[in-house]
């Protein structure tokens, strides 16, 4: 693929705006899905999954 220059990049802001809204809507949907998951699974189970995310950012300490 030809290497593009930054000044040649065309941006459709209307399309980008739609993408932004859709992305945010998906995030809210995920929050609802995850809240349902938490309410229907044991604390140990959901927290094990959540910890994969948190512990990847915060290594074991002290």
């Amino acid at each position: 693929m030809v290497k593009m220059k930054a000044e040649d990049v065309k941006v459709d802001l209307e399309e980008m705006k739609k993408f932004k809204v859709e992305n945010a809507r998906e995030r809210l949907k995920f929050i609802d899905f995850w809240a349902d998951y938490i309410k229907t699974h044991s604390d140990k189970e959901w927290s094990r999954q959540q910890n994969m995310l948190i512990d990847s950012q915060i290594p074991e300490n002290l």
Partner: protein
Amino acid sequence: MMEYYPDKKEIILDRELSNLDRLVIDFCNLLDSYVLVSGYVSILFGRSRGTEDVDLLIPLMSYPQFNKLWLKIHENGFECVTNSRTDDAFEMLKKHAIRFSISGKPTPNIEFKIIKTDLDKYSFGNRIKVKMGKESLFISPLEMQIAYKLFLAADGTDEELMSDKDIEDARHLYKIFKDKINKDELLIFINKLNVKKRLKWLK
């Protein structure tokens, strides 16, 4: 499954502790009294996001009391990120937050503030004990947390608000506890914080 007993102001949580939880518990165990507020409350109950800081409120203390606590904190592997001298930290704490972290690791850190406003006083006075096996933490009442998170979201259009992390935190807490929280109390705080228009983000 977590159990919330509003009358006892107690939540039983059987979660596996994350490294962040351990850090918060280790720090809070050094304090006589405190209340955890804001983002960490949502994370404790499963919100799937990381954080750079954990907000904590403590009652006003004298300089000798603060100095004693300062030494205790430092003797237990933490350090103050914002101040190197006790007297400076004490002065700063009167107006601003100071931050503590594990020595040599500035993030995540504990943002440490004195109880000042009525909202702070309410949070502390009505705090909820979260029991996790042998450990426990004190958190702000959920009704106030949800309203406060809606308030914290930056001003903006619906499109902007839709992806705001504070809106997401409020929605997460509401979805988890909606059958147990006191709706009247939630509305009182929604009105006091003037965020009625943002209620739609919870539904």
